[in-house]
C-alpha cells in the first residue's frame, strides 16, 4: 500500500477550508501534517480538537516533508502561496477563484509546471452528482446543441475579508460567478468565453462598499450564451444559504439543474424560521478525494489551474464591463 498523502493546510481564512479538512480527516489515504494560519487564536478550536500541528508561518510548513497543500487563504494571497508551494515541490489544491488577476494566475500555472507539481482548482460543483449526470446527458447529445443558459449562484453575505476588495479581489461578481462558469466550461469541452457583459453594484449590504449584487452575461465561442446571477442576495430568514442552479436550453430540449434541491424542509420554532436540510451527495468529500487520488497515483488532477484561470478571467472581465457599461471581448 502507498503511504497516506501528507497534506498541509495553508490558511483557514476561507470557510471551505473546514469542509476540506473534515473530508481529509475522514480519509485513510490522507494525513493532515500541519495547519498554517497567521492567527493561532482563530484556529485554536480546530487545533485542540484534531491535534494537528500548528505553523504560524506557512513557509515553515512548506519546509516539511508534506506532499501537498490545500490553500484556502484570502483570494489576494493565492498567488504567493501557490508559487511558494510549487517552488517547494508541493502539489496544490487551491480554493476558487484561482487568483484576482490574469497575470498572476498565469504565473501560478507556470510555477507549478516548472516545479513539477500539480495545481488543482477547487470547483466542488463538478462533484455534484446531478451536475455530473447533466454533463453526461449533454455529452450524449440528449438536448442537442447548447444554445443558451441561465444560472444562479446566490448566497448570503459572507462578511469578513470577502467584503474587502484588497483581500478578495472583488465581491459577489467574482466570488459567485466562477462555479457556474466552470460548470459550463466543463459541460462544453473546448468552448471558451468570448465576451461578457456584467452588472455589479452594492444593493444588499449598504454598510460595506463591496459589490454584492451581480449579473454576468457570457457568450462562448461556440455561440452558447446566457446569464448568471452571482448575488449575495439571500436574506437571513431564507431557509438555506443559497443555491446553484443552471438551466441549459438545447436545440433538442432543456435541462434544469437545481444542485441543492435534494433537501428536506425543517420548520423549527427554536430556529425561528424554516430551513432546508440537504441530503444529497457531499461534493466536498468527492472533490478532495479526487485530489488525493491524483497526488497518490501521479495521474493528472481532474480540474486544472487552466480551468481556474478560464473561469476567473471571465469574471474579472465582468468588472471591466461594469466600468465601461458595455460588453467586453476576451483576448
Amino acid at each position, binding site marked *: 500500500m502507498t503511504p497516506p498523502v501528507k497534506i498541509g493546510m495553508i490558511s483557514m481564512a476561507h470557510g471551505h477550508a473546514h469542509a476540506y479538512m473534515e473530508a481529509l480527516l475522514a480519509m485513510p489515504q490522507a494525513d493532515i501534517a500541519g495547519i498554517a494560519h497567521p492567527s493561532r487564536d482563530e484556529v485554536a478550536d480546530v487545533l485542540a480538537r484534531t491535534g494537528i500541528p500548528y505553523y504560524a508561518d506557512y513557509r515553515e510548513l512548506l519546509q516539511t516533508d508534506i506532499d501537498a497543500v490545500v490553500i484556502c487563504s484570502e483570494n489576494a494571497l493565492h498567488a504567493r502561496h501557490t508559487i511558494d508551494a510549487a517552488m517547494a515541490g508541493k502539489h496544490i489544491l487551491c480554493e476558487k477563484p484561482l487568483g484576482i488577476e490574469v497575470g498572476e494566475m498565469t504565473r501560478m500555472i507556470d510555477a507549478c509546471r516548472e516545479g513539477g507539481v500539480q495545481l488543482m482548482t477547487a470547483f466542488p460543483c463538478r462533484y455534484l452528482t446531478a451536475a455530473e449526470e447533466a454533463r453526461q446527458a449533454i455529452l450524449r447529445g440528449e438536448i442537442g446543441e447548447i*444554445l*443558451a443558459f*441561465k444560472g444562479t449562484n*446566490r448566497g448570503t453575505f459572507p462578511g469578513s475579508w470577502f467584503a474587502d476588495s484588497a483581500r478578495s479581489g472583488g465581491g459577489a461578481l467574482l466570488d459567485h460567478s466562477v462555479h457556474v462558469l466552470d460548470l459550463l466550461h466543463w459541460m462544453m469541452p473546448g468552448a471558451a468565453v468570448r*465576451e461578457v*457583459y456584467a*452588472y455589479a*453594484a452594492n*444593493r*444588499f*449590504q*449598504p454598510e460595506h462598499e463591496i459589490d*454584492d*449584487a451581480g*449579473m454576468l*452575461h457570457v*457568450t462562448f465561442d461556440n*455561440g452558447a*450564451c*446566457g*446569464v448568471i*446571477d452571482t*448575488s449575495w*442576495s*439571500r*436574506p437571513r*430568514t*431564507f431557509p438555506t444559504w443559497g443555491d446553484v442552479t443552471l438551466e441549459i*436550453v438545447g*436545440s433538442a*430540449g*432543456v435541462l434544469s439543474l437545481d444542485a441543492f434541491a435534494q433537501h428536506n424542509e425543517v420548520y423549527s420554532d427554536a430556529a425561528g424560521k424554516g430551513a432546508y436540510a440537504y441530503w444529497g451527495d457531499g461534493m466536498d468529500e468527492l472533490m478532495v478525494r479526487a485530489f488525493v487520488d491524483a497526488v497518490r497515483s501521479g495521474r493528472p488532477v481532474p480540474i486544472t489551474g487552466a480551468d481556474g484561470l478560464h473561469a476567473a478571467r471571465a469574471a474579472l472581465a465582468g468588472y471591466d464591463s461594469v466600468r465601461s*457599461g*458595455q*460588453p467586453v471581448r476576451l483576448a
Partner: protein
Amino acid sequence: MKIAIVGCGGMGHIHAAAYARMTHVRIVGVCDVDPIRAAELGERIGAPSYTDYGQLLAAEAPELVSLTVPSHLHLAYIEQTAAHGAHIVCEKPLALTVADAEAALAVCAKHGVRLFVGHVVRFFPDYAGLKHAVDGGRIGTPGVAHLRRVGGYPERQWFAEEAKSGGVITDLMIHDIDYARWTLGPVRSVYCLRRTAAGLDYALATLVFASGAVANLESHWGYPGSFRTAAEFAGDGGVVRLDSAASAALHMRKTPPKRTDACARTGEGPAPAAADAAPAPAAAEIPRSPLRKSPYARELEHFVDCLRLGGAPLVTATDALQALRVAEAAHQSARTGRAVYLSSEEGERL
C-alpha cells in the same frame, strides 16, 4: 355599454367569455376576416358576426371595441376605431414599434377616445401581491429581480413571423418588461441575448433601472414543458418570489387508457420484458390555478369601470408605449451586441 370584439382567435374568445359574464355590457358584434371563425364566436355568445369591420362599426355602433387581432394590425384597427369614436381595449403589445405606439396614442387623443392596453400581468393576483409586498417595504430596498415566462411555441402561424408578432421579446417578454417597470420604475439600460432556431425563440434581457436595481428577464417560446411563469425580487431586507408551477392548486393526472404493466410503473416489480414493453400513452398532466374571476376578467372589468365611472386605469397607454421602448432597446441590443441606454424618462436614446 355596447362592446365589439375584433379578432376571433384565442384572445378574442377570452375577451368574449369575460364580457359575457359582466353586467353593464352587451356584446353587439364580433368580427374576423375568416367567416368561419367569426361565425363560431358569434354563435357561441349570441352576437352577430362580421367579416368587414367597417360594416360592424356602421351597423352596431359599439362604444368599446376589444382589438384581439394579430399585433401588426393593431395600429390600423386603432385608427379605424378611434375615427369612429369608440373607446379601445387593445391586446398587448400595443404595437410592434415605438413609432406605431406613438401614432396609436396620438390618434386616440385626437379623436378623444380612451385607449386601454391588455397588460394583464398586473391583474394576476400573485404578481399584484408581489408588487404589494415590494411597495410595502417587505423586502427593504429592491436589488436584484428575476422574471421568467416560458412555454410552448405558439401554434398560430403569425406568431412565427417576426414582422407580425415581434417575436418572443415584443410578444412575450413585454409582459415582464411592463411588470418590471411597474415595480422597479424607469429603465436606464438594456442588454439582451437572443437565440432563435426552428420552433425556438429564447431571450435573456438584463434591465438596469434608474434606481440602480437590476432585473433579468427570461422569455422562451419552445420550452418543452407546461407554460410557466416565475418572479423573484431580492432586497436588502428580504426576498419575495412566486412560481406558477408551485402555486398550481389543482392537478389532474389522467390514467392512460392502456396500462398492462402497472407493477413496473410503481417501481416495485421487475421491469417489463422487452416483448410486452409496448410504449404506453403518456399520462396527461394539466396543472391549474383556478380563480372565480380570471385575471383577464379582472382586467376587462377594470377597463369598463374606468369608462363607466371615470378614473385612471391601473396600466395606461403610456405605460404600454414605455414598455415598447424597452422592448425595442432589447431588440437593438440583441442585434448589435451592445448595451442600449435610455434617458431617465426612457423618452429617447442617449
